[in-house]
């Protein structure tokens, strides 16, 4: 077996994780990103990694790739020029949206202008009813004339018709006509393919965004395939999706919007992998970088999936790993609000000028400065880093706010960390308590450069008692990529009342979904082994307008008969309702709104690379001693360890600091950290 490569492209660095599937040999690396053409950094970094570690790239079997090309094009508004064809009477829908203002009180904040200007939104006489029947058929002549109005300098066309999720014929007819008229030269996104679900604004918005990204993504993938094809002739290219799981390059070109949250999703997939190696099924992740922190909830080794989210101010309705983001990072700046209260973030000093202690001209106190003031960070900076941190600059930045608070600089720094932690705690509450999960039943898994520094305070605030720091917290995203399955999500939106008369319809729909999955397995050449399928429905009480996801069945091969009878389906819905809302009404009518099927083609899992820990190793040797502030007003003598020298079985008692290449982990007094068989650092919070 050859090498499997994971490549995660971030704003500053492109991370690499290489795994030899037969020897379980692992290598990691970082290379500066090349934002103008991300493929360049990928190819350069791979080249360096292969020469450093003697990896034969021509034998690589898979390159799994997390990309921010789509996300960045959205944020910077650098997508294609798009036309829209929609049902007569509804061209303003894209602009009206949900008729809400982005801020209740701020008169000057606006929703972003639609990506398709009004003059490029064209209306067609056609109508499908809420029952899926054609009320007004398309007249071919009018359609051809309308397509003639599409300005020739546009790159893509979104086709968004009402009720196309029930009956896609009209959208397909329009797409066909555009293809014919433009000789296949125009990118086309149709809403019944991009996301065939009800609620037109979110569907239209998602489809328009998809069309907007098609030209950019197509160009990027062609570029990448060209380079990768030369360097890694045998490697299959997989692109990470926002829902977790990979898709083929071809599908990424057709559905680029599915990569909108590709990067953070890879982090969560990586966290699931680490959770497996540590045998901890329930995890809350805390991925904290320079400007923001992403948090997610993992139950039974599965990340929760959400179906709606805003990216760059636009709503997207697609399955996505359920991640919440908060403006809390190492660079977050502390400031006084008008009412005299101290706030931290969301404004960040970023990488340039960066925190005051970087000595690059930053003058404002940041979270990183606070950690340095408390000696939790070493003045030498990160291990292997070439940038020393300057405590005197950090203290100088804190001086004015400490004076205003009449506090010591250390106390002020502690306060700033307390506030940034409370911001993250508030966000974690939205994905846990607000959904009925108590964090105390979960372990906290911090990663990213700044996660491990703050994990302990976050855990304590949420009554969590255990923290798991992965072996390479800075490279969890790239790690997640190599263990990703190929994955595709199918949905059929069809209201189906749960009574005996309707079961035939439901069986029919499940059969259709399974057919789609079979076609996908064949099309993606994913072989015949390691297939898995997961059937879910979105159901609700009749009259409600809010659905609950109900897991129905999963297995290697499902059949329509995997759909249980009506009584059992109702029971499953009641159980889901009870667990989410705390009650259910057994008398009321229940209906299914969406049928969902997830198909995965699994990859061969590498054997765990555990060193046998039969013999207790000798005590770890500290590198240095340093005075560090933890919870008391006075600093304590603290041992400093090098993570790379810690081996399975090693125990580190707090107070201690564990330094490594990509992060720093403080072990508080009375806490205890142990290195598990796979190198994860398991911290038990003591005295609680």
């Amino acid at each position, binding site marked *: 077996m050859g090498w499997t490569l994971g490549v995660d492209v971030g704003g500053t660095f492109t991370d690499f994780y290489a795994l030899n599937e037969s020897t379980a040999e692992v290598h990691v690396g970082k290379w500066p990103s090349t934002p103008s053409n991300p493929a360049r950094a990928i190819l350069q970094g791979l080249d360096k990694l292969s020469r450093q570690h003697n990896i034969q790239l021509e034998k690589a079997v898979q390159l799994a790739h997390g990309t921010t090309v789509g996300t960045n094009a959205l944020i910077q508004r650098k997508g294609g020029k798009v036309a829209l064809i929609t049902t007569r009477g509804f061209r303003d829908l894209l602009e009206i949206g949900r008729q809400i203002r982005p801020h209740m009180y701020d008169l000057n904040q606006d929703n972003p202008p639609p990506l398709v200007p009004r003059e490029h939104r064209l209306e067609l006489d056609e109508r499908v009813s809420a029952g899926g029947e054609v009320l007004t058929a398309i007249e071919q002549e009018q359609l051809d004339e309308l397509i003639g109005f599409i300005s020739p300098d546009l790159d893509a066309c979104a086709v968004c018709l009402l009720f196309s999720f029930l009956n896609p014929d009209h959208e397909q007819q329009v797409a066909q006509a555009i293809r014919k008229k433009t000789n296949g030269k125009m990118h086309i996104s149709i809403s019944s393919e991009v996301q065939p679900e009800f609620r037109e604004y979110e569907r239209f918005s998602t489809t328009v965004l998809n069309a907007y990204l098609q030209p950019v993504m197509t160009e990027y993938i062609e570029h990448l395939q060209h380079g990768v094809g030369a360097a890694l002739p045998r490697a299959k290219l997989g692109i990470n999706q926002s829902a977790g799981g990979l898709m083929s390059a071809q599908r990424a070109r057709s559905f680029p919007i599915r990569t909108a949250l590709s990067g953070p999703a890879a982090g969560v997939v990586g966290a699931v992998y680490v959770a497996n190696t540590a045998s901890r099924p329930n995890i809350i992740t805390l991925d904290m970088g320079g400007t923001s922190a992403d948090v997610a909830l993992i139950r039974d080794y599965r990340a929760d999936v959400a179906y709606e989210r805003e990216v760059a101010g636009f709503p997207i309705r697609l399955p996505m790993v359920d991640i919440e983001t908060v403006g809390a990072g190492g660079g977050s700046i502390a400031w006084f609000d008008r009412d005299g209260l101290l706030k931290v973030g969301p404004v960040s000093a970023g990488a340039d000028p960066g925190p005051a202690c970087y000595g690059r001209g930053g003058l404002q106190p940041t979270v990183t400065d606070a950690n340095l003031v408390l000696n939790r960070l070493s003045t030498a900076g990160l291990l292997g880093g070439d940038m020393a941190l300057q405590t005197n600059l950090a203290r100088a930045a804190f001086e004015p706010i400490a004076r205003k*608070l009449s506090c010591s600089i250390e106390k002020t720094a502690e306060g700033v960390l307390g*506030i940034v932690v409370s911001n993250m705690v508030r966000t974690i509450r939205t994905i846990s308590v607000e959904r009925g999960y108590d964090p105390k039943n979960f372990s906290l898994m911090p990663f990213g450069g700044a996660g491990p520094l703050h994990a302990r305070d976050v855990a304590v605030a949420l009554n969590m008692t255990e923290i798991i720091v992965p072996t390479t917290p800075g490279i969890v995203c790239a790690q997640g990529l190599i263990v990703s399955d190929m994955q595709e999500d199918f949905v059929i939106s069809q209201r189906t009342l749960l009574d005996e008369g309707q079961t035939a319809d439901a069986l029919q729909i499940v059969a259709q979904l399974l057919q789609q999955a079979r076609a996908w397995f064949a099309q993606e050449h994913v072989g015949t082994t390691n297939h898995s399928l997961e059937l879910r429905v979105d159901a609700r009480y009749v*009259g409600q307008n809010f659905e609950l996801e109900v897991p129905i069945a999963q297995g290697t091969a499902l059949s329509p008969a995997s759909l249980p009878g009506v009584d059992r389906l109702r029971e499953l819905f009641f159980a889901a309702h009870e667990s989410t809302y705390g009650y259910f009404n057994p008398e009321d009518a229940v209906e299914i709104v969406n049928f969902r099927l997830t198909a995965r083609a699994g990859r061969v899992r590498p054997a765990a690379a555990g060193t046998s820990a039969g013999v207790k190793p000798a005590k770890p040797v500290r590198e240095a001693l340093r005075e560090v502030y933890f919870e008391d007003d006075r600093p304590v003598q603290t041992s400093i360890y090098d993570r790379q020298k810690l081996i399975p079985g090693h125990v580190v008692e707090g107070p201690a600091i564990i330094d490594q290449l990509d992060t720093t982990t403080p072990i508080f007094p009375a806490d205890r950290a142990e290195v598990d068989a796979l190198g994860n650092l398991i911290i038990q919070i003591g005295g609680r």
Partner: protein
Amino acid sequence: MDKPVLDPIKLEILWNGLRSITDETFAALTRSAYSTNIKERRDHSTAIMDRSGRLVVQASQALPIHIASMSGLMACLLRKFGDAINEGDIFVANDPHTAGGTHLPDVNMACPVFADRQLVGFVCNIAHHADIGGIAPGSMAGGMSEIFQEGLRIPVIRLFRKGELQQDIMDLLLLNVRIPEERRGDYFAQIAACRLGSQRLREVLDEYTVGFVLSAFDQIIWRTEQRLRQVIAEAPDGVYRFEDVMDSDGIDTFDIPIRLTLSIKQDTVHFDFSGTAQQTPGNINVTMNATQASACYALKALLDPDVPNNEGILRVVEINAPKGTLLNASFPAPVAARAHTCQRIVDVVFGALAQALPERVVAAANGANTTAVFAGIDPRSGRHYLYLETLGGGIGGRPAKDGKDGVQAHITNTSNLPVEAIEMEYPLLVEEYSLVTDSGGAGEFRGGMGLRRVVRPVDHRCTFNGVGERFKHQPWGLQGGQAGASGRFLIRESNGETRRLDDKPAEVIVSAEQAIIVETPGAGGYGAPRNRSREKIMLDRISGKFSDAYIEEHYRRQPHHE
């Protein structure tokens, strides 16, 4: 109040915890409610009040108009029950005249929270129920002339007594409304949100001491008051006057003036509404606390949009509105359509402050809360249905930007119902949902545009009730900007001809061959049209938002510009 004594860091962290509680209860109420109006349109709010009834924290998505109901309810509750408040009680109320409400469909609940056997505060929520009984489906139609016609009046009463549901009361509440099963679901969602909130507040009380939390409540309110006073002090002192005119009360009163004399002196602001019309027979009347909420909104939007919403704001806003007038109505004034008047109060405040803060104000918005209610019997199921929606419109031109098109204005920000949801849920067909051409007032920065929705019943006859405002008195412009278009209700006959309906039509029968057309008002422009840039005029034309004729009429250049 005293100078701050609490550590601002610890206070910020506790405040963060309190905001979490209101946001969590808000989300819980959204999720577990039954009705579309709450689940999808989020017409609800949650809050924490202290034991003397002062608002401390409101959910970030809470609606401005609801701030008043909660404070109003607390005042009545404490007056009525005083020492007889027990753990496990949940109070319910909606009446504007005896229980601090602003209109009947907004049902308030309040749940006392105790620690160390003393009352610490209340968790409250408020939800707009899609029907509360009365003569018209939806309880929001125009034409009602007494509070009794508008629905069930609930004084402050206990729905739960020491943890026990008062089933008799619940039965009474449900018997008096249309579609009781949906109402029951919404009531229980509100109850669940109360319980969740009180549990969370108790957790906070366990973590801190009761004394600390109580003084934090004081601090939060004090700091907010100081913050707002500081920005008021920065505004120029002076006495500013403005007047606007409401179209009608839906019965027999037309051209109803709202008059404001606004004085700023150092860090105080005083709103004097003397000279405003007497309360009207129709239901556009406003109770005092809704007037207060509207004035607070306007001040906050202009001066400090991020100032937290709590009692600290209410303490700054001094109001004189004589009893028995439109803005301080007395029993038995009907009030269902009060939102229109509240919107107009905001416009009037902006108009007055245009003289003081020309670089901040915006021109008149659509000034309405255009309401459309379709009701009937679904021919597919034989069951009653009721579809209520309030539509947005334009927001006025701004000192450096055009106004906003087709959004909810000012005191409300509820979302629309998707067309596909409407048609799947109700036997109705939406033919069009668009911006009204030429509806934004001309100006250097033009006003926002109104919305147009065309709806017809499928295979049955339905009834239509509506409430419109600024259907006659157009949204005015500022600094030379022109007025935006007014709104209208139309009925389209089977032959395709349209006929204008009343501005507050009641019980209009619509057949399957007819259709109702709702057009909401646009908004006023800001600055003289002759200063509008060529690029903007070109965009107005290319986008088709404005007709050539309109552009010709309003932006024809003076000869020396040619």
